[in-house]
């Protein structure tokens, strides 16, 4: 049993840890268009790393460069200490699972899965054994003789996964692995994916534009926009401590307000926010120049909604009326308009079956702890 230091599960915090996949200054230009723009990234062994970004942000292009299917315009890719920047796809120690699954239609499930081993000239009996093993792992043994056209979407997805895993690649690249599945199956498969990754200890790099998927699956997430990473961090860091407007706005719901720096000391900064009609002092490490424009952000679920004014006084308190509300079962989502016209989104848990929350046009009080206010530089 390996010694389990705190850093063993968070190697990115360990300055001595050697990254397993190292990407340096990687770019891909299509003509004048920069699909991927000078990206640096370290991924560690057995991570489940997600790349999250809107459509067209360059996720697939980045993944294809890792797989060797697209030649980088510039930059370097290193896997397990070996420079593979110029290696053809068939010589890279990684496999990719395509968004479209790309199962060979003229081969059975079994033949699809066995293909990678055959190309490696693995002896026949071993192929048989390993194919049987992995089909068992993805619970498809009973469909071994079926053609891809005869199995369902969820089953195709598992065949694609088995085919990509059978060569025991050092890194598995997955392009939107669950996009084609319906919601229920997707949630189920997410956990299967994590289980399999856990069992095999393979490093996963998952591309997705589904935030929930990225949140549930990943050890770390890179948020991508227009060919660049806006932030890299654990799901918690990305969600609770976004470091710029794009990340904050892209991941989850958030209320953003403009604010101006009016003063501050070494460890804190005082801001004036017209939208909230208040002056706030927040802890902040780097000093900010007076007059600088910043943003304040608060997640909807961090805001407490009440019909009465709160008794504590150390909270940010606002008064408003319910503009709109939506019932989602476990949650209700409110849009509250304050006196000066600012609209704030608030979500509240429906804890009691028969409790009646605020209704349209009710007067309500919003309050949140100052520590839940996020200060964003740009």
């Amino acid at each position, binding site marked *: 049993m390996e010694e389990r230091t705190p850093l063993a599960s968070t190697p990115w915090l360990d300055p001595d840890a050697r990254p397993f996949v190292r990407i340096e200054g990687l770019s891909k230009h299509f003509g004048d268009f920069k699909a991927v723009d000078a990206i640096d990234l370290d991924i560690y062994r057995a991570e489940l790393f997600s790349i999250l970004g809107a459509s067209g942000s360059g996720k697939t292009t980045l993944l294809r460069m890792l797989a060797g299917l697209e030649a980088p315009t510039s930059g370097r890719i290193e896997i397990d200490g070996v420079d593979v920047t110029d290696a053809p796809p*068939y010589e890279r120690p990684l496999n990719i699972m395509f968004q479209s699954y790309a199962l060979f239609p*003229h081969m*059975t499930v079994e033949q699809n899965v066995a*293909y990678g081993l055959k190309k490696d000239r693995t002896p026949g009996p071993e192929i048989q054994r390993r194919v049987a093993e992995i089909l068992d792992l993805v619970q498809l043994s009973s469909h071994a*003789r079926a*053609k891809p056209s005869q199995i369902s979407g969820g089953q195709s997805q598992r065949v694609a996964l088995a*085919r990509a895993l059978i060569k025991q690649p050092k890194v598995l690249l997955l392009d939107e692995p669950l996009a084609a599945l319906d919601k229920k199956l997707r949630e189920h498969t997410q956990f299967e994916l994590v289980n399999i990754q856990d069992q095999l200890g393979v490093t996963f790099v998952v591309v997705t534009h589904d935030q929930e998927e990225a949140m549930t699956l990943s050890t770390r997430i890179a948020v991508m926009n227009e060919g660049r990473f806006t932030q890299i961090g654990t799901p918690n860091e990305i969600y609770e401590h976004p470091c710029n407007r794009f990340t904050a706005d892209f991941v989850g719901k958030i209320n953003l307000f403009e604010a101006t720096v009016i003063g501050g000391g070494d460890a804190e900064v005082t801001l004036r926010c017209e939208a909230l009609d208040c002056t706030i002092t927040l802890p902040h490490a780097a000093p900010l120049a007076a007059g600088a424009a910043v943003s304040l952000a608060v997640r909807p679920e961090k805001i407490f909604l009440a019909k009465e004014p709160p008794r504590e006084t150390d909270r940010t308190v606002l008064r408003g009326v319910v503009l709109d509300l939506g019932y989602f079962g476990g949650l209700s989502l409110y849009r509250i308009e304050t006196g000066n016209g600012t609209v704030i989104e608030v979500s509240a848990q429906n804890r009691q079956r028969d409790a009646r929350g605020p209704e349209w046009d009710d007067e309500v009080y919003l309050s949140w702890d100052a520590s839940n206010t996020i200060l964003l530089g740009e």
Partner: protein
Amino acid sequence: MKRHGTFVLSMMAFGFAFLYVPIALVVLYSFNGSSLSTVWGGFSLRWYGELFRNEEILRAVLLSLRIAALSASVATALGTLAGMAMARLPRFRGRTLFTAMILTPLVMPEVLTGLSLLLLFVSLHDLFGWPGARGGSTIAIAHITFSTAYVAVIVRSRLTGMDPSLEEAAMDLGARPLRVFLDITVPLIAPALLTGWLLAFTLSLDDLVIASFVSGPGSTTLPMLIFSKVRLGVTPEINALATVIIVIVATGIAIAARTMRRREARHAERPAPLGTGTG
């Protein structure tokens, strides 16, 4: 409703009659006992006997089949490469021109193709002493040049309909480009290859104009022979020959259709076990 039905039926009958009455007449007259092709002299197989004793016709049939098989095979190989290039090459300067140039033979008048090839062969002969005498090989070369374009078009359309990530997946799994081509591309475009080959074969078998330009003395293809004979009047022998060709073609089509249907049915019910079907 009913009147509409009879109208459509009679239109169809007329259409079919237009297509098939001439053929039916040819078949009918091939069994004519009389040597005058326009007078019915009772049922007889006499002309079939004559046909199979006629060395000239048999030689022409053999030559035509050899040329068709050779040119169809070479055209399929070359056309596949051209089709791959058209479907897979990334955009480059002059790509449109390149594509258009591959496809020109499709619309070029046969007379021009024939004439230009004849001029080419003549000047090649003057410069290099090859081809010595025009004949089967020059006809085959001529047929390859225009059938290649047909095969290229068929292969290209099949390839553009194919998911490129299939080939990428194979490459990612460790297959080198040639293996990818043999394991993935060829099986997936096989129907297009078969169609292309059959089309090239038929085009070659059928060609009269280009072959007349580039053939030499002593190498007479079947269409050339039929054409020259018919100019002296339709002989019952030619009717018999036409009937034989019709029977062969119809049988071929029927067999092809049946095997294709069978294969599909088998694929659907009982897929091949592991280790078969792939290299």
